[in-house]
């Protein structure tokens, strides 16, 4: 299922931020909520969070950039995350990752030129007894082999 995001809108952004401003230490909660709505955290949202929480813009920027999850620009239509941690390495994950990179013609962390697929590493999905595993747009897939990876890639490229 392709995720659907709203285009950035400052009023909508402020509304989302206001929904969470009653929480203690709400910065991460707000960043997550914004990314869920817009697919990324648009630059103009940072000062909005800062003013809602009485923080400096630099502090919010620091939080935003510390965490791997938050995006500064939209991802491709589909995001394929391949687990690159030890349990998946032990089960042949390195070869599968190389296969996916070759098939897509991009390295980990990049997006295909047609903007259809973003390929990302993830460090453990907790599916270590059914390794190697992946997540396509939030859907988990285990016991990957070349055939299953190819099926996922075909699905993502459609």
């Amino acid at each position, binding site marked *: 299922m392709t995720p659907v995001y709203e285009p950035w809108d400052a009023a909508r952004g402020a509304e989302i931020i206001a929904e969470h401003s009653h*929480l*203690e*230490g*709400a*910065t*991460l*909660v707000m*960043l*997550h909520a914004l990314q869920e709505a817009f697919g990324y955290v648009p630059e103009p949202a940072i000062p909005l969070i800062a003013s809602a*929480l009485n923080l400096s813009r630099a*502090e919010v920027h*620091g*939080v935003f950039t*510390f*965490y*791997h*999850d*938050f995006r500064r620009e939209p991802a491709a239509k589909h995001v394929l995350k391949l687990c690159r*941690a*030890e*349990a*998946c*390495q*032990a*089960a*042949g994950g390195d070869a599968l990752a190389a296969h996916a990179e070759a098939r897509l013609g991009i390295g980990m962390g990049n997006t295909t030129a047609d903007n259809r697929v973003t390929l990302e590493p*993830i*460090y*453990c*999905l*907790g*599916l*270590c*007894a*059914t*390794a190697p*595993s992946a997540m396509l747009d*939030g859907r*988990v*897939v*285990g*016991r990957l082999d070349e055939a299953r990876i190819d099926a996922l890639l075909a699905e993502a490229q459609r």
Partner: protein
Amino acid sequence: MNVRIFVPRDAGAIAVGADEVALALERAASSRGVAIDIVRTGSRGLYWLEPMVEVATPQGRVAFGPLTSADASAVLEAVITDGPHPLRLGVTENIPWLKRQTRLTFARCGVVDPRSVEDYRAHQGFKGLERALELTPDAIIADVTASGLRGRGGAGFPTGIKWKTVAQTSADRKYIVCNADEGDSGTFADRMLMEGDPFVVIEGMTIAAIAVGAAKGYIYIRSEYPHAVEAMNAAIQAARRAGYLGERIGGSRHSFDLEVRVGAGAYVCGEETSMLESIEGRRGIVRAKPPLPAHKGLFGQPTVINNLLSFATIPFILAGGAKAYAEFGMGRSRGTMPIQLAGNIRYGGLFETAFGVTLGELVDDIGGGTFTGRPVRAVQVGGPLGAYFPRALFDTPFDYEAFAARDGLIGHGGIVVFDDSVDMSRQARFAMEFCAIESCGKCTPCRIGSTRGVETIDKIRAGERVAENIAAVEDLCNTMKFGSLCALGGFTPYPVMSALKHFREDFGPAPTRLEAAE
């Protein structure tokens, strides 16, 4: 009466097709005109059999697995006619892999409906809380201490002492924080419990709150676990509706409420002080200790931080099980440990058993060796910061002290099995690389050391002044071990040093080996 069929909603089962199987069973039932009730449970943890479905029968639940949606119709037929089927596994509780376990923390996982308070109650749920409400805080803590429970996150600190410290620290506000930032590769016990028995976590945290006098708790769950986040939030809402969270819990004078906070892909936030920073809305930078979180923790207030498995074990202990719990185990490691068998393993999954079982029994006997069928060469115990063990050390008993004595750690109980195609210098390099990616950057040994470690191991792998560079890596590991602020930089040397010590032949130019591993 409708046939009740249990299908896991555990992410590990969903990843191998449990949702499709549930759908196919429904379709098969409607086309055959039989009424079935599908109950979505957690997983029993026998992952090589997932998706494993169970059917309620007068003899107990009968299991079938591993199913694909194509099997649904024939399995349903076998269920209705009580006939044979090649995937029929017999009464679930009698499956040897499950039967030889001692499931205390995981007693209900895979059995109950994780969305139902009633089902939890029907399976001994809230018995520990009910008893705790009749006890004084001191008596609750005495029970926890008597059980011998030690922190299941890896550090193994006695839970009772931690609680006592918080209880004795006076403050207007105190907090309970559950560490569900299960980032270690090879571990999934927290995820299974959140998805399969979330109320036990709520109950354990509530008991902690009563014991130390806290009114608010947070569960910090990693963002890589969306199913667990959803399950935990649903359980919290259900518990609130049933009066188990909120004002005056169970009609008592105690009030306690919970909130889920979701991480954002930073491994270091599994370190307790970094987690506190993250919950407070800041960069996950590690804090120096002291002050201990028990004195000055979340928002500067006294805070109990325990691993999810520790909290999930509390209800059993408080329901009159302290003595029984302490009777399991060996040495100073009392009770049971939910061990997770992962990686290249034939029978992978969740195996809860008393401390003392040997590594060899776990890997060869219970785990059945590798699924590739090749010989086991190395196992990493305790996640990315745990040591690699060779077969020669397979007599090591699963016990905090025994692993420490062999320069390893049990961590959160994950065991990742590798076959003989593994290149151990590559694994050592990965340990350093992972530390470099995930370092919070506060202390120099971790921030700089990890990057230098990668570069130096690369030189060794390229055959450049091998002996000198190995000495440099060893020196660097010592600096990181003793000079880092937290376990990320401090324990990254474990996998590196153990690989060097036990698999020295993989370091340096050995063209044939390198080619074989590519």
